[in-house]
């Protein structure tokens, strides 16, 4: 049975991704910063008849929490097939470039960028033991520099400086990491699930979590001919 660790999986797109991968036969380690919320999520999945799922307490901004989560996972499995860096925050408003509080900016990077890096670095040993290791960095088209400079783009006025630039940095991490693993079986991509109704955007997103999660699942389950070092959305490759 293939294994997957999803960070920030107690709700929203993360939880739905957990559900879909469990239904595809993966054993899902559901990462949650908050144990009680994580257990709630597990119970929801069990109520839906899904049993191949287990909670891992994991705060991606806390190096000790990451180390503990890794130790715990190592007592259960020798191989991790998929890592989905899904944990993310949108930050406080306002987020215009000249007005954003620096503490707000730094906090968003701590989860969305430094958190994803720390998590990846710590679980890479377990991933290397997989025959087909996959890493999905959950990104956003709002982090696309090309879109953000295009006045004709539908979301051109969505200039959330902290959120967007943290996703740009995460995309850069994807490119760099994928390069370092280019001669291996790893597939490492940034994936934008699309504008999905979750609490990250006060449920203003225009698609369901099921749709959003399905994009992530697609790139978590790429076969050996799949792309790596790319930025994907629901339609395929998208602009950096």
């Amino acid at each position, binding site marked *: 049975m293939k294994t997957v660790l999803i960070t920030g999986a107690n709700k929203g797109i993360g939880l739905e991704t957990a559900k879909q991968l469990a239904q595809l036969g993966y054993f899902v380690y559901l990462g949650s910063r908050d144990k009680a919320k994580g257990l709630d999520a597990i119970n929801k999945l069990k109520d839906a008849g899904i049993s191949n799922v287990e909670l891992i307490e994991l705060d991606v901004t806390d190096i000790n929490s990451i180390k503990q989560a890794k130790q715990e996972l190592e007592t259960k499995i020798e191989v991790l097939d998929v890592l989905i860096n899904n944990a993310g925050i949108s930050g406080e408003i306002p987020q215009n470039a000249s007005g954003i509080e620096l503490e707000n900016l730094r906090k968003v990077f701590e989860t969305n960028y430094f958190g994803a890096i720390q998590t990846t670095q710590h679980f890479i040993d377990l991933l290397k033991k997989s025959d087909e290791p996959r890493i999905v960095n959950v990104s956003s088209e709002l982090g696309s520099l090309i879109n953000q400079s295009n006045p004709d783009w539908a979301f051109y006025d969505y200039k959330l400086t902290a959120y967007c*630039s943290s996703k740009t940095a995460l995309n850069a991490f994807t490119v*760099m990491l994928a390069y370092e693993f280019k001669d291996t079986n790893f597939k490492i991509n940034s994936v934008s699930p699309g504008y999905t109704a979750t609490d990250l955007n006060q449920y203003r997103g225009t698609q369901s979590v099921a749709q959003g999660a399905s994009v992530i699942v697609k790139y978590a389950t790429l076969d050996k001919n799949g792309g790596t070092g790319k930025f994907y959305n629901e339609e395929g490759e998208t602009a950096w």
Partner: protein
Amino acid sequence: MKTVLITGANKGIGFETAKQLLQKGFYVYIGSRNLENGLEAVEKLKAINLTNLKAIQIDVTDDNSVKNARTEIGKKTDVLDVLINNAGINGGVPNTALEARTDQFLAAFNTNVFGVARVTQAFIDLLKKSPEPRIVMVSSSVGSLTLQSDPNWLAYNFAKYAVYGSSKAALNMFTIHLAYELRDTAFKVNAVCPGYTKTDFTNHNGGEVEEAAKRVVKYALLDKDGVTGKFISEETNPTTGEIAW
């Protein structure tokens, strides 16, 4: 007399940029994290008869230092015409995505991204008083995700500096957002790559520092028809300078 603040101007490309702008008649605030190094730089420039300048202690990672610099410059001038966010660090080694430590990533982003935001926010009021305000973000083609993903790019195999490159990509996004916010004003805000240049940043490999500073100066001096919100590397694209994000 037009005024400019250059961060990290005590050496390297920042210092040479200061020199060239002095020669063009600017009053230059030489930003330096360490005041003594700044004062030394000022002496060097005075020795070649460039005298319209002042050293300013500014550590872009430190709120108080930036506030003090703002107060000090505010006492000397009501208007700042140009801000050159030049201070930057390369993040050290190891510089791979897999091996670089979290504290390296943090340090690089503190200076190269959050530091730029801090300084820009502190001086934006003085810049708004200029009829032709210009902000140059000293960036790098290494921060281009398009180039970094293109196996045909000349530096594809040797410029994979994970820490530095991603900090410049984030800085580029900040540049786009700031230019957007100021799009209906006289501001010109651009990310400019000076090119691979002989400084202590590169262990003195690369092109001449005069050439690099010239590229920065050009975008500090844009006229009202100049571009804004662009990513410029004349090293990569000598024709228009504009390169892919």
